[in-house]
């Protein structure tokens, strides 16, 4: 029911919203712009906004000197690996909770959620120690497992809420139409579940990509992902704004793009279905 709003009001809304939107986005924009400046231009006084000599030099330098590709590769493997592992474990669990609920389903779900609330720092040393013992310290496998564990509750929850939206009557209809269990899963369930699984994967890749407690504390040189790569810029070494910007842009660009696709899932995934 579209209410007619005066054009004047709409213009005002638009201007205000765009102003605030750009303000919030500005730090990212500024980082991207700076990544194309020379180091001298990056700290020019007054700051240069658009009119400078655009250069790709920083990207080349970051790439050459710091082995960016290795960090990127670590990030990709850890984020995707932990998500896939988590989804594989979560699908059967979420499935059975959604379609064969029992009296304890709710308790189990809430308990899973409660493990997500365990403060990481509370178990930092035990994990550190276990990692040394198991030779997992500074390994991609170790981080993959840890990130899978911290995101598993979210994955189970998201899948559960998606699966619950598949109406039971449709599965019954398939049964009445003569579909056996195999046909039911192959032709009815899977096609209906895939969008939900895809959204879950997307959000959890983002969460794992940006995780910055375990990735900083359990890695050194070998398995460090982009979070740690960027953190290495925290020790000031003279003029490095442009390079920091280039490195940052490369670290956030892929996930920013994925993130824009998953706005809706973000709400579902991070509120555990409590806000609809």
């Amino acid at each position, binding site marked *: 029911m579209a209410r007619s709003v005066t054009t004047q009001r709409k213009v005002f809304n638009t201007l205000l919203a765009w102003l605030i939107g750009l303000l919030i986005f500005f730090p990212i924009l500024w980082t991207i712009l700076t990544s194309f400046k020379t180091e001298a231009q990056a700290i020019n006084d007054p700051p240069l906004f658009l009119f400078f000599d655009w250069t790709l030099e920083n990207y080349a330098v970051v790439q050459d000197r710091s082995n960016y590709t290795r960090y990127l590769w670590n990030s990709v493997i850890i984020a995707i690996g932990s998500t896939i592992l988590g989804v594989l474990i979560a699908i059967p669990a979420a499935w059975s909770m959604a379609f064969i609920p029992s009296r304890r389903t709710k308790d189990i779900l809430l308990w899973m959620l409660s493990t997500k609330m365990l403060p990481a720092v509370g178990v930092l040393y035990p994990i550190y120690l276990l990692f040394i013992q198991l030779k997992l310290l500074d390994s991609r496998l170790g981080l993959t497992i840890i990130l899978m564990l911290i995101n598993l509750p979210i994955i189970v929850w998201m899948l559960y809420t998606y699966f619950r939206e598949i*109406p039971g*009557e*449709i599965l*019954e*209809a*398939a*049964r*009445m*139409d*003569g*579909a*056996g269990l195999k*046909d039911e899963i192959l*032709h*009815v369930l899977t*096609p*209906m579940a895939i969008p939900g699984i895809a959204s879950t994967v997307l959000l959890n890749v983002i969460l794992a990509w940006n995780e910055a407690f375990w990735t900083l504390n359990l890695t050194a040189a070998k398995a460090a992902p982009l979070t740690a790569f960027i953190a290495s810029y925290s020790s000031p070494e003279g003029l490095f704004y442009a390079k920091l910007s280039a490195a940052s842009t490369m670290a956030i660009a892929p996930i920013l793009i994925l993130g824009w696709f998953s706005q809706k899932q973000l709400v579902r995934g991070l509120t555990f279905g409590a806000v609809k």
Partner: protein
Amino acid sequence: MGRIVLDKVSKSFGTTEVIPPLDLTIEEGEFAVFVGPSGCGKSTLLRLIAGLEDVSGGVVKINGEDATAVPPAKRGLAMVFQSYALYPHMSVRKNIAFPLRMAKLDKSEIKQRVEDAASVLNLTDYLDRRPGQLSGGQRQRVAIGRAIVREPEAFLFDEPLSNLDAALRVGMRLEISELHKRLATTMIYVTHDQVEAMTMADKIVVLQAGVIEQVGSPLELYRSPRNKFVAGFIGSPKMNLLEGSEAARYNAHTIGIRPEHLTVSTDGNGWQGVVGVSEHLGSDTFLHVQCDDFEPTLTVRADGELDLDYGARVSITPDLNHLHLFDHDGQRIG
């Protein structure tokens, strides 16, 4: 094809018995309607026949064979669900073809049958759309199409019209009745709407709290309801039911009289009363009359042209040949 027999079938969820053991036979080619208020167990009964729920006791026979342990996919029954339960990711064509694909028919046969069903149901132009792009009535037709292509032993309908608007409902009611006449396949239809039951059924099964109150043809139920519940449930507007001294005159606990068996006049010597609201349907007028001698308001059917003011005094005479008498337990005694 399609004789369904329930022999002492019962159903419990945990410790609550929703359907005590009951017997029921639905003959070949019959249009049977299960009707009752919500929560009476009619849908559960249908799902027991479908095999979507396991019976707690008793035997379900389809065409004389024990089907109690047969999974729904193998019972040869087709079902139309209240929500239609169409597969959202498939086109109309694929939805209708699904049961045939499951039955492993060859492609040309499937194509032929789907197109036949579509033309019968006026869906030919929509075959390549997704269910989400269809109106409620069209979705309903797709659901029916999916049921008829496989030529089942019997059709099961679970409140199929309750999600449609009033005008569409009347149209679909007619279409389903016609389909039944043409296919002559057994149909079992669940509804809470007694008008649907009366207009479509060969046999009505009235249920209350999991118990069959009466089984019979629409007119049997209408003319001689076996008890007060059926009397009140079948017929619209409802039968007038009176207790107390009026009933005592006929040696009954309750007497019932349908609106059309009451005559209204402005100067008679029946029950005296005051006209409340008059509902003009054009063909008929339903008067709601508050009588002087008893509490319940009487509903009276009168001629469509009759125009009485609110508050007019009238007298009402019942047609004693159509008086229904019930005893203390609500059972019919005459």
